[in-house]
C-alpha cells in the first residue's frame, strides 16, 4: 500500500517544510516561555540551596529575608547557638543594589557573610569557579561571574571599594540578580550607614535637639552620635541543624523561646514560589496559554489550507472509490508530520536560544515531552476541521468546472 500522505508531502515538500519551520519557531517561543518560568523557580531554589541553611530566623512577623525586609540584632546568633538541635548559626545580610565598577554598574544582591575561617558555614557560596575565598575581614569580595567582574577588579559598594578575589557561578537572588559576597561588617555598613553628608547633617540635627545636647551631661551627644552610626542589625540568621534534628521541632522552639519568626526550607520555598514570583509566574502562564492557542489556530489554518489546495485531488480519490478513513488518515498524518517537524525545529531553536537570554532559562526534558504530546494533540484536533471538509467534498467536483 502506498503512503498517500508521504506522496502528497513529497509532491509539495518545500511548502510543507517551510510551514513546519514557521510553526517550529512559534513552538520554540512557547518552549522558551516555559523555560523562563522554570528558570525563575530554579533561581529561587538555587538561592535556598546555595545559602546552605536549614532554618531562616528573621524579624518577627515578617516574610524575610528575601520576600520582605527583616532586621534583627546580630547577637541573636549566639542565643540561637544554644538551642538544642542547632549546629551552626550565621548572621547574614542581603541588599539588592547597583554595584559600581569603573564606569558601569551592575544590579547585584550584596550578601554579607561572616568572614574568617568559617568556610562552608551557612551563607557562603558552596563552590568557586576561580580565585579564592575571602580571607580578610574587610574590603574583599567574591562575585558571581554573571556580574561580569573579573579577579582583581575593584568594585564600589556604597562607601567602600572591594577587591574581587573569587568568582562563583549560579549564585543568584530569587529575581536572578547575581550575588556579590562581602564581609559582614562591611555589608552592615553598606546597608545601614549613610553617606558622610547625611551623617554630618544628622549630627547637627541631634546637636540641635535640647534633649540630647544637655549642658550638664557632656558625654551624651558623642555617645548618641556614635550609637546612631553603629550598625548591629542583620537581615537574618541562617541556621544549620545537627544531623537527625527535626527542622519543625527546632523552628517551633525558636519561635516559642526566642520570640522570632522562623522558616524551614519548605516554608521558604512556599514563600519564594508561592508569593515572590507568583504574579510573574501567572503572567508567563497566561502567555503560554495564548501562545498555545495561537499555535493551535495556526496549525488548524495551515492544515485547512493545505487540504483546500488539493480538494480536487481528494475528489478524484473519492471518485475512484477510496475509503473515507484513508483520506482522513492522510490528512491526520500530514498534520502530525507538521507537528513533529515544528516541534523538532522549536526544540532545537529553544535549546540554542536559551543561553542567550539575560536571565536563566531552564529547559526541562519533562516539559519538552509534555510539549511534544500537546503539539500532537493540538495538531490532531486542528486536522478535524480539514478532515470534515475533505469528507464532505462531492466526488463530482473532480470532473466539474
Amino acid at each position: 500500500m502506498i503512503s498517500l500522505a508521504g506522496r502528497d508531502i513529497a509532491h509539495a515538500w518545500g511548502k510543507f517544510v517551510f510551514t513546519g519551520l514557521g510553526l517550529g519557531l512559534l513552538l520554540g517561543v512557547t518552549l522558551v516561555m516555559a523555560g523562563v518560568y522554570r528558570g525563575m523557580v530554579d533561581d529561587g531554589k538555587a538561592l535556598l540551596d546555595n545559602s546552605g541553611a536549614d532554618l531562616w530566623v528573621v524579624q518577627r512577623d515578617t516574610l524575610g529575608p528575601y520576600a520582605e525586609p527583616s532586621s534583627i540584632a546580630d547577637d541573636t546568633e549566639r542565643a540561637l547557638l544554644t538551642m538544642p538541635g542547632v549546629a551552626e548559626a550565621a548572621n547574614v545580610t542581603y541588599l539588592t543594589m547597583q554595584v559600581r565598577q569603573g564606569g558601569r554598574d551592575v544590579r547585584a544582591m550584596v550578601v554579607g557573610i561572616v568572614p574568617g575561617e568559617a568556610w562552608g558555614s551557612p551563607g557562603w557560596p558552596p563552590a568557586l569557579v576561580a580565585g579564592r575565598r575571602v580571607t580578610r575581614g574587610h574590603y574583599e569580595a567574591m562575585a558571581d561571574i554573571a556580574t561580569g567582574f573579573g579577579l582583581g577588579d575593584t568594585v564600589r559598594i556604597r562607601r567602600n571599594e572591594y577587591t574581587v578575589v573569587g568568582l562563583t557561578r549560579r549564585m543568584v537572588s530569587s529575581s536572578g540578580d547575581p550575588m556579590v559576597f562581602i564581609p559582614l561588617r562591611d555589608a552592615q555598613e553598606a546597608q545601614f550607614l549613610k553617606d558622610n553628608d547625611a551623617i554630618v547633617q544628622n549630627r547637627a540635627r541631634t546637636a540641635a535637639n535640647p534633649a540630647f545636647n544637655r549642658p550638664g551631661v557632656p558625654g551624651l551627644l558623642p555617645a548618641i552620635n556614635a550609637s546612631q552610626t553603629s550598625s548591629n542589625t542583620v537581615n537574618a540568621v541562617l541556621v544549620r541543624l545537627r544531623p537527625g534534628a527535626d527542622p519543625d521541632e527546632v523552628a517551633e522552639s525558636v519561635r516559642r523561646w526566642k520570640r522570632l519568626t522562623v522558616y524551614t526550607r519548605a516554608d521558604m520555598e512556599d514563600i519564594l514560589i508561592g508569593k515572590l514570583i507568583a504574579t510573574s509566574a501567572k503572567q508567563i502562564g497566561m502567555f503560554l496559554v495564548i501562545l498555545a492557542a495561537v499555535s493551535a489556530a495556526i496549525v488548524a489554518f495551515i492544515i485547512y489550507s493545505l487540504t483546500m489546495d488539493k480538494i480536487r485531488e481528494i475528489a478524484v480519490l473519492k471518485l475512484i472509490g477510496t475509503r473515507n478513513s484513508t483520506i482522513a488518515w492522510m490528512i491526520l498524518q500530514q498534520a502530525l508530520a507538521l507537528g513533529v517537524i515544528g516541534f523538532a525545529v522549536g526544540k532545537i531553536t529553544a535549546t540554542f536560544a536559551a543561553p542567550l537570554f539575560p536571565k536563566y532559562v531552564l529547559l526541562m526534558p519533562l516539559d519538552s515531552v509534555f510539549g511534544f504530546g500537546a503539539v500532537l494533540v493540538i495538531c490532531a484536533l486542528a486536522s478535524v476541521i480539514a478532515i470534515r471538509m475533505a469528507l464532505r467534498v462531492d466526488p463530482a467536483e473532480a470532473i466539474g468546472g
Partner: protein
Amino acid sequence: MLRTELRADAVTEELLAKVAFSAVPLPLPPIGERAEVTVDLPALPAGPVIPNAAVQRQGQQLGVWATQGDSLTFVSVKLGRADLDGQVQVLQGLKAGDAIVLHSEKPLTARSRIQVVDHIPGVAP
C-alpha cells in the same frame, strides 16, 4: 604590635589592638583615622598547604574532593592556620602530591562526573 586590649567585642569577636610604628611616618596620620594593619607572624615550619577554594563542607565535615582518575572521593581534612593569600595548612587527611579539586562549576557529590580542565570555560584565567 604594642598591646591588645583585654576586653573583646562580644558580637564581632574582635579585639582592639594597639600598634606601634617602627618608623614614624611624617606627617602623622590624623587621630581617629581607620587603618588597615597586617600582622606578620613568625613563619611556620614548611608543610602541605592547599588553596582555601578547595575546602568544601559535607554535613558537619570539612574536607576536600580528591580525584583518582575519573572518580571523586570526599576526604575530610584537619586544617591548620590560614594566611591572607588564601592558603590553608593541612594537618591531616592529605599528603603531598594528592590531586584535589580546586574549582568546580557546580557543588560536587560523590556521583558527579568530572572532567579535569586547566581553567573553567567562560572564566578568565
